[in-house]
């Protein structure tokens, strides 16, 4: 225990450090690594978007915006949600611009959770949902999903974990780390139980544009769901804008109002330059975005087929830019496999258990990497597996 430990709150101390962080430190000490461990596009933000930001700086847009964000941006988002999800949101009362979806998740949990309320978190999933729930004095309840179901959330798995204290359900599709998606029918199957148990859904749709097969469906667009869903999205993945930290949340005006209250005291507003860039992205970014998505799609097929060629079991990801192959045939744990892959072959992938215990036995490989790096990384992985099998 460190000297200052006694000053730290129990709730913060109760949260384990991110598994990714641990692995990051290890990778950083290794030279010449091919990394499939990143969680962001390998494109830089398209030039026209960067240029729009520079122009806004030249024009002197360096001040606060309203707490909710620039009205033009909220209007563009309203149009975008109508166009892509068929959802109508009032830009004045039902949309809040946030510092990435990460902020939206944090303030939503703080606005919704009473101490002891339960937050249902389908796993494997992005690393911040469960800690976010705990920081809001709630309890994170993991719900397992499985490769055999293509990582869709099953009704029976969900039903098993619902209790009288259940308040919020996370849905994050297309999914990080698995690349799984939920079709309309898959989501329809959950609507009744969500309504019956009076749950609020936080739908993290940050990878929505990166849907390669089928179309993205927001659960908010299903009957009876719009009022009880917070749709969260942003610009990081589709427009390669991770470092801009710009996202948004749409939902019922009462809830958005509560979120805005926290946002105004803690953040004030998202940076104006990022908001200006986001306007440009929504107005003129479609064509370049499509090109990037086509490019990911080629590499998706390359990595999945290459992994299968070296004998790894890999479920076909239909969204995001990750694949989630199984390493269980080697008998190694996710962490052991990733450590050996790094030490012996200088390839970084993220152990699946960093995304929840149901990710054990899998590794996350990001294919936002060059074709030659993907091929080289898979070849090295094949070498490791062969050596291990022959040992």
């Amino acid at each position: 225990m460190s000297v200052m430990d006694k000053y730290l709150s129990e709730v913060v101390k109760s949260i384990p450090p991110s598994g990714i962080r641990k692995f990051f430190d290890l990778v950083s000490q290794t030279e010449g690594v091919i990394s499939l461990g990143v969680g962001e596009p390998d494109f830089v933000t398209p030039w026209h978007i960067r240029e729009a930001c520079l122009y806004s700086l030249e024009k002197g847009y360096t001040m606060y915006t309203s707490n909710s964000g620039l009205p033009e941006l909220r209007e563009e988002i309203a149009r975008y949600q109508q166009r892509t999800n068929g959802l109508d949101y009032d830009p004045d009362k039902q949309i809040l611009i946030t510092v990435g979806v990460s902020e939206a998740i944090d303030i939503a949990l703080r606005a919704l959770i009473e101490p002891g309320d339960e937050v249902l978190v389908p796993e494997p999933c992005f690393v911040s949902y469960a800690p976010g729930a705990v920081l809001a004095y709630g309890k994170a309840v993991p719900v397992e999903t499985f490769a055999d179901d293509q990582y869709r959330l099953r009704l029976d798995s969900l039903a098993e974990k619902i209790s009288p204290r259940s308040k919020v359900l996370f849905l994050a599709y297309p999914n990080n780390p698995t690349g799984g998606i939920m079709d309309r029918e898959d989501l329809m199957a959950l609507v009744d139980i969500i309504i019956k148990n009076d749950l609020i859904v936080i739908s993290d749709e940050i990878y929505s544009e990166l849907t390669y097969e089928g179309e993205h469906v927001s659960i908010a667009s299903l009957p009876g769901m719009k009022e009880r869903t917070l749709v969260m999205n942003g610009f990081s993945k589709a427009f390669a804008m991770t470092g801009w930290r710009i996202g948004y949340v749409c939902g019922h005006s009462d809830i958005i109002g509560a979120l805005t209250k926290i946002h105004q005291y803690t953040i004030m507003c998202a940076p104006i330059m990022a908001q200006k860039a986001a306007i440009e992205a929504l107005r003129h970014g479609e064509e370049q975005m499509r090109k990037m998505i086509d490019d990911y799609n080629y590499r998706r097929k390359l990595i999945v087929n290459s992994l299968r060629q070296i004998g790894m079991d890999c479920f076909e990801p239909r969204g995001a830019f990750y694949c989630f192959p199984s390493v269980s045939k080697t008998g190694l744990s996710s962490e052991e496999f990733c450590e050996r892959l790094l030490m012996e072959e200088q390839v970084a992938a993220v152990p699946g258990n960093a995304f929840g215990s149901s990710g054990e036995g899998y590794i996350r490989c990001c294919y936002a990497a060059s074709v030659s790096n993907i091929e080289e990384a898979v070849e090295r992985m094949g070498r490791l597996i062969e050596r291990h099998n022959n040992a």
Partner: protein
Amino acid sequence: MDLRKRVLELMEHDARLSAKTLATMLEEDEEVIQKLISKMEKEKIILGYNTVINWENAGCEGVTAMIDVKVTPVRDLGFNSIAERVYRFPEVRCVYLMSGTYDLSVVVEGKTMKDVARFVSHKLSTLEHVQSTVTHFVLKRYKQDHFIFEEPEEDKRLVVSP
């Protein structure tokens, strides 16, 4: 999108993608891709493959000029026969027919300015039907065929992130 177009789009950006890699990316048979490429080579859809080189970094300096050429079109043949006489010179890298104040844009490469000047005065401007030439020397190359010459675009991402 048809397969041919998808293959071409991928190869336009990286000619070194092997038939095997292309086949894996497009979920096609390697042999199908190989045959398709050979067919496109025969049909002159794929004219050839070359490398984008920063000769300055290789320590080999050269000179490139863009020459605006005004010509008198030839009856029945228009500009084509003159363009053909121009593009057959090995010094000529590109020839385009242009709209606007001149007719042909000719990109010429030489070892020295003198080389290029000699080509223009001795070979190009003396061609029948060539009325005038204006030569612009390239001072600096910033970008060519999608590649930026100055700063290498390196991966600035963290090696591992959530």
